[in-house]
């Protein structure tokens, strides 16, 4: 006696969260059954292995049918074939587009191309995530990227509108898309200590301040700005950053800046002497020079990609080697950027703020072990 056909169709589509997770994780039906057995479901329910097999098959079939709709979430809402309560629809979408931290760290900042897709085997082997799941996650990134690529307006909003994500997931995807578009280097060994959350945080700040969309007029007339895009960094802004070089090139300015910072921070900083030493021009780990040079280099695409490497090399690592506490870093960065306003000879205050406000946020986030 063999089962030729075995199906269960509910008027409300049954979604088993546990099986959905196994399916998303890329397990085959037999693996999923084995995992469910190991989870003790047979003992809990008194079911037989055959029942479990049939149930798992059924769910997998349902998910397979739903997958086509999940590729365009608004379709899932409007389709008539599967009656699914809104909360469950949201869950389906959210989980389908959820990604593994380990996976996203591998592909973050890489071009979402066929070439990268070929490397998924290696990523799968390295991270222990099934190839199937890697493919789904990669395809998700690529799908979202393709849809919002040419769109105007807020990146996160566009993603949310077209994929119906939660705020959180939409912001994460905005970061992924932003990184993929600008190809920031994140894989270097130096950067391994950083989590996706760190990068996403920075991405959000950069999108808010450094992109074309960021300089857009009042939000009431978003269409007035032809290049109102969140994906690309504001090229003009990056060009202008060269002007900041004067802060380290002009000796007077540098000294004045230094003394202002030192005066303000004297007694407040546990690592005052280290800080002070770092301002000295010959010092190899001149923090100020480092930060300004990073800014000045951003005109070249190659250097834009290395932004995070540079930030870690030029700022995070020196501070860390001197054992700066985070509080001191914050105090220093605040003072460092604020005192520039008191430099009368410096004409690029707005530019400095646009650069430094974002950078300060990023650095503080990046500064951990």
């Amino acid at each position, binding site marked *: 006696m063999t089962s030729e056909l075995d199906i*269960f169709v509910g008027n409300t589509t049954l979604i088993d969260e546990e099986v959905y997770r196994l399916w998303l994780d890329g397990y085959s039906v037999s693996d999923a059954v084995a995992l469910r057995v190991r989870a003790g479901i047979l003992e809990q*329910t008194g079911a037989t292995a055959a029942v479990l097999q049939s149930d798992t098959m059924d769910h997998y079939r*349902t998910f397979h049918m739903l997958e*086509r709709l999940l590729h*365009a979430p608004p*379709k899932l809402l409007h389709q008539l*074939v599967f009656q699914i309560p809104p909360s469950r*629809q949201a869950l389906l979408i959210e989980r389908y587009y959820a990604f593994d931290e380990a996976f996203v760290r591998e592909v973050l900042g890489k071009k979402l191309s066929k070439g990268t897709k070929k490397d998924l085997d290696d990523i799968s082997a390295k991270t222990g995530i099934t190839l199937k799941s890697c493919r789904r996650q990669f395809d998700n990134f690529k799908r979202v990227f393709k849809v919002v690529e040419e769109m105007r307006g807020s990146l996160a909003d566009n993603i949310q509108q077209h994929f119906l994500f939660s705020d959180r997931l939409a912001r994460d995807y905005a970061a992924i898309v932003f990184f993929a578009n600008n190809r920031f280097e994140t894989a270097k060994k130096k950067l391994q200590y950083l989590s996706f959350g760190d990068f996403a945080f920075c991405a959000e700040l950069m999108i808010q301040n450094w992109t074309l969309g960021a300089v857009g007029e009042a939000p009431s007339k978003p269409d007035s700005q032809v290049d109102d895009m969140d994906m690309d960094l504001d090229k003009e802004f990056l060009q202008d950053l060269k002007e900041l070089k004067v802060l380290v090139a002009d000796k007077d300015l540098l000294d004045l800046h230094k003394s202002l910072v030192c005066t303000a921070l004297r007694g407040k900083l546990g690592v005052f002497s280290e800080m002070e030493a770092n301002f000295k021009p010959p010092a190899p780990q001149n923090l100020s020079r480092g930060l300004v040079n990073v800014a000045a280099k951003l005109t070249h695409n190659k250097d834009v990609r290395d932004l995070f490497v540079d930030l870690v090399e030029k700022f995070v690592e020196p501070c860390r080697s001197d054992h700066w506490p985070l509080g001191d870093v914050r105090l220093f960065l605040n003072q460092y950027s604020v005192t520039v306003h008191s430099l009368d000879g410096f004409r690029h205050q707005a530019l400095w703020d646009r650069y430094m406000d974002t950078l300060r946020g990023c650095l503080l986030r990046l500064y951990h072990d």
Partner: protein
Amino acid sequence: MPGKLKVKIVAGRHLPVMDRASDLTDAFVEVKFGNTTFKTDVYLKSLNPQWNSEWFKFEVDDEDLQDEPLQITVLDHDTYSANDAIGKVYIDIDPLLYSEAATVISGWFPIYDTIHGIRGEINVVVKVDLFNDLNRFRQSSCGVKFFCTTSIPKCYRAVIIHGFVEELVVNEDPEYQWIDRIRTPRASNEARQRLISLMSGELQRKIGLKVLEMRGNAVVGYLQCFDLEGESGLVVRAIGTACTLDKLSSPAAFLPACNSPSKEMKELPFNEDPNPNTHSSGPSTPLKNQTYSFSPSKSYSRQSSSSDTDLSLTPKTGMGSGSAGKEGGPFKALLRQQTQSALEQREFPFFTLTAFPPGFLVHVGGVVSARSVKLLDRIHNPDEPETRDAWWAEIRQEIKSHAKALGCHAVVGYSESTSICEEVCILSASGTAAVLNPRFLQDGTVEGCLEQRIEENLPAGCGFCHIPYDELNMPFPAHLTYCYNCRKQKVPDVLFTTIDLPTDATVVGKGCLIQARLCRLKKKAQAEANATAISNLLPFMEYEVHTQLMNKLKLKGMNALFGLRIQITVGENMLMGLASATAVYLAALPMPGGIQIAGKTPSDGSYEQHISHMQKKISDTIAKNKELYEINPPEISEEIIGSPIPEPKQRSRLLRSQSESSDEVTELDLSHGKKDAFVLEIDDTDAMEDVHSLLTDVPPPSGFYSCNTEIMPGINNWTSEIQMFTSVRVIRLSSLNLTNQALNKNFNDLCENLLKSLYFKLRSMIPCCLCHVNFTVSLPEDELIQVTVTAVAITFDKNQALQTTKTHIEKSLQRASTDNEELLQFPLELCSDSLPSHPFPPAKEHLESARSNSGIPAAQRDRCSSWIELIKLKAQTIRRGSIKTTVTVEKASPMGEGNFRNRSAPPCANSTVGVVKMTPLSFIPGAKITKYLGIINMFFIRETTSLREEGGVSGFLHAFIAEVFAMVRAHVAALGGNAVVSYIMKQCVFMENPNKNQAQCLINVSGDAVIFVRESELEVISTQQPTANCQQSCAGGEVTT
């Protein structure tokens, strides 16, 4: 020209890509009704076309309005070649033809293609302007309402229940016409869908005419079926119960009434009194006074004299209203006469209802059934469609005579079915013989009916169990005892019925689903020899099915079956029998004895040991089941919680009734003695197998209950969560050395595993009950068994359950004790069953050609031995069409943008698809049905030539059933409804040919589209027992004091 049909095509969405080059579609729509066709403009290059057409107007006869479906075809425009069809929508406009139902059909319909399934949706608006037609000779029957529900629909009241209506129409099956050899599978499928739609419309119209003739205005319990007879044709037949229904003005008005009868009874201070004179109280203030006026001693003396004298005294005391006199002796005869004459006027006093207004059902005799084996033959004479009519008339006559033999004048819970394999067809009919109260059957003023209803509202509890028969002339040997409720009338030891449990029945504990499963091998044979072989097997199968049912019933420690449905399926080399029913313990019936096993060969010691071991196991199972289903019948029913009557009084009376009314006591004792165990003789291995199989049925896991009736006895407080589902399984038998035993085991395992899977799948709904579990067995091929199950899982509140069960018992006890039986004393015969007594004349009958529609040429066709074979044959000629499975990712469709502009809204909350509930039950728990919008009756064919690509047979059927659900929901939503009740999947014919990568499936579903409103939204106070008492609502509305 009595009607104008207006159609507007608004828009489409999610259309498939038809032009590979542009990844877009140039869609337009053809709207066809009858022979008139309109077209919309072509909407270029869009997957979301906005046609916004003008109103297309069709001026048509109302006859056509009833018969024809509106046919909407979506096509892709192609300048150089033929336009490609995207898909179709058939809309039955019948619901627009009654005044009270829907006024407009408007909404998104899935565009369906028989090869590709659903391909996008189309938004359509349909309206009908009906002109009054005064022509008395009209052929239409617009305005007659149809209900699939097998009880009086919730917001209606039955004024008169007229009785049985039936009709059938015959046609050639397009799939078997010569033209089918040259047309595409799509064209063939569409021709079939259209024809069946047309035939359904015609059938409904003809039944409507019959109803109008009977002066009714509705058909309740409408059941329409298709017989796919292959070569010999296509039969569409329907049965139903004609009624005159009155719409209840407002839903709120009858709502509180649901609970009033029971409440009222609780207030009565003397309900536990076995003296029957209290029963006729109605609004009972005078009675109350009277009882209190008795001094204790006096009342004892009076009551102890004998209950019978009290009964005769009743009219004299003049309690209640004057009408109480009617219940006296002479009236009974009159009543009976009336009833009989009322029913005898009818050719067939049958009722397809399974639940009845209170007081309608007086006695239940037992199950009556008839089967007959017929040979289908090619249509020879197209002008004689009466052959099938004659077949059914014959069977109905048999049913009628069976009922008569049981002293019953009517059959309720009546249904008909067929099973066809090649040219052999088994026709089956079954129902429950019953004695009915004539008041619903006669013409009369509404007032008269109301009056009667008031006086007769209270009897119940055990009345229907009392044997309606002459003890000395039993048609069947059975143990009789005095009713355990009223102790005055006789009851059988077991009761089998096809109806739902009457709402007022007193049940102990909970019920459960019982199934008898049986397979019998049969030699392959042709024509007459085959029919003879089947006819010879049938009686044995029926007998065994019955024995199994009886054994399983005893094993559960219960004594009655409701909703019994025995299905016999014929295949090429076997017969399958599947009986499902809901077992309960009726308080009125005696406690069932155990099962005793007796061995035939006592010589062997180990054998003896084995037997005793088995006996122990069986006894243990019975004990376990009793515990599981909470079967602990009260030994004496007088003890009532919260009774206002002082304890001592009660006790003394109790004592007295035991010692003084001597006759009764001896009878009762005797009956206890007679209640010997049911003896199972084990004389061969077969019997041993049978006993073993008894023990293999596993009870559902804790928290689960199941039944095949509308509601589960003993559970009253459903919560609103429901989940309707269909599950299909097909197994392939290993063809080697199949024996009956192996076959039985396979079949048994199939059903058991299926149930286990259901319990597992629905475990998140615990505590829950599977209601209306409906199994269908078919044998699509030699070694394949297909089982289809449709049911609804309903959660209930466990804590509340206990509480209400208690009050329910309390209530029923009260009710039982206040019951009396004046109405029920007709000499009627007992029938606890009637199964093994049917002869099956091996009849060879020629099916004459029967076509109601001419115009289809009687072409020469190659004779194919079966439908399936023809499918196979055809499959060879199928060209592999280009199958495009298209997935499109839309970029910023206007719709999507529009809908999701607003960021602040939660992204998933703005779903535009309304929820439509589906249930096989006639009600929605926790909700009130406020309007019936019309009948849903849909037939779909789906075929594939890329079975593997669609996920194999499972993937194919899974998708198809999901699509069928979707189309039903869309039609209901377009009618303005939010639920389908009394939903049933009448047919699911699945054929596959994996070698050719092909499969085909036909599905027929029906139900009633309704609008329901949550009770919480209605702000109704009493929602405790929304379901159990709803049946009373129709009549109960007038009883409120």
